[in-house]
C-alpha cells in the first residue's frame, strides 16, 4: 500500500504543480499550452543549476526566475502583441524543448543526460519508506490548499476569475485584466519551475532531452477536466497519475495475454471515460455551452 501511495505521489506531484499553473492561467483567461515548455525549462535549470552552484536553493531560484521569464514572454506576446494564445503557447513549448536541448549541447558538447550530484532534498530515513519523497511532494498538498485559498477564498482570486470569464466586469471594478494575467502567468512560472524541478530532481537527479514527454499537455488536459478548479484539477491530475500506474500494472499482469499497445492505451481510454462521466454529471451537453461571446466591451 505504501509503495502504491509513494508511486502515485511521485508521478502525480510534478503533474499537479504544472496543473496548478494551468489552472491559474485558465482562470485568468489564458489557455496556457506553453506549460510543457516552461516545465522543461524548470527541469533543466534545476539540474544545471545544482551542477553549477552546488546549491539546491540557488538552483531552484534560478529555475523559478527562468520559468517566470518564459511566462512573461508568453504574456508579452499574447497581451502586448495580441498573438493567438494557443499558437504562442505551442511556440513557447517548442522553445523550451529546443532551448534546453541546445543549452545542454552548448555547455556539455553532447546531448547526453546530465546528472546532478544531488536533487531536491528528501524527507530522509526518519520517515521510513516515505523518506524517499522530496520536500516538494510534502509541500504539494499545502500548495494545492494555498492555491485553493488564493483562487477561491480571496478577493484577488475572484477578480482573477472575473478577468478570465468576463473581463469587462473585472475592468469595471477596477481590476486590470492584463496585469492580472501577468501575475497569474508569473505565479504559474514558479509552479512550473517546481513541477520541472520535481520531475528531474525529485527522484531522478538528472536531466534528459524532452524528459517532460507531454506532461505539460496532460496538465492542460487536467485543467480542462477539473474545470479550472484548483482542487478539481488536482484530482484530475492525480487521476491521470493513478490510471498511468494502473496502465503499468495492466502491462505487468496481462502483458503475456493482451497486446502491449492495447494495454498502454488503457490510461487514455480511462481518461476519455472519466471526462465523459464528469461531463454527464455536470449536466451534459447543455452545461458545455460556454460564454463564448462574453467579450470585453
Amino acid at each position, binding site marked *: 500500500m505504501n509503495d502504491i501511495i509513494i508511486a502515485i505521489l511521485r508521478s502525480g506531484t510534478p503533474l499537479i504543480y504544472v496543473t496548478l499553473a494551468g489552472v491559474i492561467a485558465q482562470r485568468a483567461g489564458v489557455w496556457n499550452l506553453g506549460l510543457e*515548455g516552461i516545465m522543461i525549462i524548470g527541469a533543466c535549470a534545476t539540474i544545471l543549476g545544482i551542477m553549477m552552484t552546488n546549491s539546491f536553493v540557488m538552483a531552484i531560484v534560478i529555475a523559478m526566475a527562468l520559468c517566470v521569464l518564459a511566462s512573461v*514572454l508568453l504574456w508579452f*506576446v499574447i497581451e*502586448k*502583441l*495580441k*498573438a*493567438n494564445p*494557443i*499558437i*504562442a503557447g*505551442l*511556440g*513557447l*513549448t*517548442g*522553445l523550451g*524543448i*529546443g*532551448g534546453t*536541448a*541546445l543549452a545542454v*549541447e*552548448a555547455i556539455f558538447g553532447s*546531448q547526453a543526460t546530465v546528472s546532478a550530484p544531488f536533487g531536491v532534498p528528501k524527507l530522509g530515513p526518519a520517515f521510513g519508506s516515505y523518506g524517499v519523497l522530496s520536500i516538494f511532494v510534502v509541500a504539494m498538498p499545502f500548495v494545492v490548499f494555498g492555491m485553493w485559498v488564493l483562487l477561491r477564498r480571496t478577493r484577488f482570486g475572484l477578480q482573477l476569475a472575473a478577468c478570465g470569464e468576463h473581463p469587462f466586469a473585472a475592468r469595471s471594478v477596477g481590476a486590470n485584466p492584463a496585469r492580472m494575467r501577468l501575475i497569474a502567468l508569473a505565479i504559474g512560472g514558479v509552479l512550473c519551475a517546481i513541477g520541472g524541478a520535481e520531475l528531474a530532481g525529485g527522484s531522478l537527479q538528472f536531466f534528459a532531452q524532452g524528459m517532460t514527454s507531454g506532461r505539460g*499537455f496532460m496538465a492542460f*488536459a487536467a485543467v*480542462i*477536466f477539473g474545470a479550472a478548479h484548483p482542487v478539481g484539477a488536482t484530482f484530475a491530475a492525480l487521476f491521470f497519475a493513478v490510471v498511468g500506474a494502473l496502465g503499468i500494472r495492466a502491462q505487468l499482469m496481462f502483458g503475456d495475454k493482451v*497486446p502491449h*499497445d*492495447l494495454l*498502454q*492505451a488503457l490510461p*487514455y*481510454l480511462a*481518461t*476519455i471515460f472519466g*471526462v*465523459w462521466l464528469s*461531463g*454527464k454529471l*455536470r*449536466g*451534459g*451537453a*447543455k*452545461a*458545455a*455551452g460556454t460564454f*463564448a*461571446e462574453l467579450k470585453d466591451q
Partner: protein
Amino acid sequence: MKDRILSIIRSLIFVAFALVLCAAVFQFAGYNAPLMLGSIADGAFLRPGAMEQSLRWALPLFITAVGVGISFRAGFFNIGAQGQFYVGAIFAAFAAEWLKGGPAFVVIPACFIAGMIGGALWALWPGLLKLRSGTDEVITTLMGNFLASLLLVYVTSGPLKDPSGSGQQASSRPLDAAYRISNSLGLSPTIIAIAVVVGIVMWLLVNRTAFGVLASLAGRNGTMVQWQGAKLWQLGLSSFIISGALAGLAGTIELMGPNGRIASGFLPTHGFTAILIALVANLSVVGTAVVAIFFGGLASAALYLPIMAGLPAAAIDIINAAIALFITARSNFVEKFLRLGGRSQ
C-alpha cells in the same frame, strides 16, 4: 483586401523578427547565423527543386489544415488531426493490403475512400461524445491522438508488418508501384489535383453554401442558430466528420504518394502543424493555402538546415517555435508604421 495584405505583411514582419532573434541567439551560441538565414531561404524556396519540396510538405498539410479550419469554425476545438491522419492512413493501408493485386483504378479509389472513412470515424466519436454528452472535445481528441499513435505502432509491428528480411521494421509492406500516386519525391499531378479539388470544394463549402455560413455562425453563437431552427448536432457532427475525413485523406496521400508505406511514428507533428496553419490563416481556406505553403517551405528548410548550416536538431525546433510564437502577433505598431503617422486606435 487591404486588410488581408496588411495582415500578411504583419505576419511576415514578425516572422522575420523571429528569425533574426534566432540568428542572434545561434550566433551567440557559436553557430554561423548568416549561413543559417541563407540556408533557410535556400532550403525553402531558392535552391533547385526547393519549390517542389516545399509543395510536397505543403499539400498534405493544407488538406489537413482546411479540415481543422472547418471544425474550428464550427466552434469545436478539435485537436485530433494527428490521430485522424494516422487512422486514415491505417485504414487506407488495410484497404491496399486486402485489395492487393486488384486493378489500380479500383484499388486507388478504394484506398482513398477507406482513408477518408477512417479519418472521419476517428473524428466521429469525439464529435458524438461532445454533442450528446458535452464531453470536452479538447481532451477526447488529444487522447485520440495518443490512441492512434499506439494503433499505428500496433498495426505496423503486427497485422501490417513488412515481413521482408528479418522482419525488424515497424512499417507496412511497400505498396505496389501501380498503386502509388507519386514517386518518393511526393509531388505529382494527382496529388496537386487532389489538393486543388479539396481547396475548391472546401472553399465553396465554406464560402458558398448555406452550411458554411451556418456552421460558422453556430461556432460563434450556437444558441442563436438554434433559435433560427438549425439542428446544432447536424452542423457540429458534419464539421467533425469533414475535418476527420480530410485529415484521413492527407494520411492516405502520404501513404500512396511519397511514403508508399506507413511506418510507426511517421510524420508525428503533422496534425499540430496543421492546427497552427489553420489558426495562423484565421481559418480562411485561401489563407490556409498560403500559410501551408509557407510552412511547407519551413518543413523543407528544416530538413536542409542541419545539413547545410550544421545546426543541431534542437536549433530547428527553436526556429520553428520562435516563428510560432510570433507569427500571429498583431501589435498595432506595425499598422502605425505602415500608415506612416496616420492616427489609429
